[in-house]
C-alpha cells in the first residue's frame, strides 16, 4: 500500500500565531541579523553622504547593536551559563544605548 507523504507542521511566520510565544533569545538573534542587513544599506548611504549626522547616528546605533549582541553570543560560546542569556541581552542593549547617548551628547547635540 503506497504511503502518504508525511505532514509536518512548521511555524508560519506570516501569521500572528507563528510569532506568538517568541522568546528573548530569538529576538536577540533576529535583531542582530536585521541590524547586519540594515548595516549594509546604511554603510552605502554613509559612503555617499559621509557628513550627514543622521546617517552617522544610524550607523553607530546599528554597529553597537550588532556588535554587542555578537559579544553576547561569544560570551555564551565561551561558557557563560545559558540561563544568563536574557540578562546578557538586556546588558547588551543597555550598553549600546549608553554608548550611543554618550557619543550623541559629544558629537551631535
Amino acid at each position, binding site marked *: 500500500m503506497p504511503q502518504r507523504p508525511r*505532514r509536518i507542521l512548521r511555524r508560519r511566520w506570516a501569521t500572528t*500565531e507563528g510569532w*506568538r510565544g517568541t*522568546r528573548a533569545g530569538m529576538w536577540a538573534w533576529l535583531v542582530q541579523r536585521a541590524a547586519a542587513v540594515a548595516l549594509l544599506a546604511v554603510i552605502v548611504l554613509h559612503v555617499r553622504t559621509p557628513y550627514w549626522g543622521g546617517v552617522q547616528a544610524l550607523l553607530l546605533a546599528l554597529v553597537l547593536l550588532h556588535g554587542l549582541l555578537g559579544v553576547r553570543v561569544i560570551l555564551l560560546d565561551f561558557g557563560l551559563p545559558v540561563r544568563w542569556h536574557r540578562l546578557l541581552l538586556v546588558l547588551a542593549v543597555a550598553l549600546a544605548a549608553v554608548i550611543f547617548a554618550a557619543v550623541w551628547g559629544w558629537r551631535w547635540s
Partner: protein
Amino acid sequence: MVLKVFRWSPGFRERIQRFWVPAKEGMTVLDALVDAQRRLDPTLAFRYACRVGMCGSCGMVINGRERWACRTLLKSLETRIVTVRPLYHFPLIRDLVVDLAPLAEQTARVGATFVPKEEPAAFARVGADAPERRRIDPAIECIGCGLCVSACTMVANDERFPGPAALNRLFTVAADSRDAGHPDRAAVLFSEDTLTRCHSQANCTDVCPMEISPTESILALRRRAVRGLLS
C-alpha cells in the same frame, strides 16, 4: 472559555475547531481537552498518560508556546481563548497527536549511545561530586517529550540538524569518561549541519519542563569539538 483546537486527519483539510468548555478552578488545558472530547466530540485525538507531569506525552503548542497540557493551568494563561496546536517539526498522525519516532532516529543517527571501553574497570567509579558528574547531571533528565524540538527554529530550516534533544543526549555520553566514543560521532559532529547550526536562541532551554538546557549541552559539545581540533 473557548478552546480553539487544531484538527486534521489524513486525507482531510486542516481546520480550527472551537469548543466551549466551562472553566473551573484548578482546571488544566488537558482537563479542558478531556471535557471537550467526552461531552462534545469523541473523535478529538490527543495523547496523554500520567496526567501529573511525569511522562511528557501531552506536549502541545498552547497559545503559541510549547507546554505540557497537564501542567498548564487555564488560569495561568490569563485569557479566555486558548489555542491548542500539535507540536511542530514532527510528522502529524491526527489532530494533536504527532509521531515522536524522529527523536529516537536522530539520537541514533548522531551516535548518542553509550559505547563501553574495551578494558573496563571492575567498577567505573564516578563520585557524586566529581566535576564530570556535575557537568552531566543537569542534562540527563530528558524524558523525550519533544517540546525542545518543536521550539527549535533551526530544526525547521535544516532537516539534517539533529535537534536539541538528540544533541543533549549526545553530550551526556560524550562527556562520560567511561564512554569510548561511537564511530559515527565525529563525522556527524564536524558536519556543517550539526553543532554550527545551533544559533544559541535558547528556545529549547526556555520551554523544557525538566529545566534542561540543550543549548548549554550543544555549546559544551562545540567547545569539546574545538579542543579536539586544536589538540
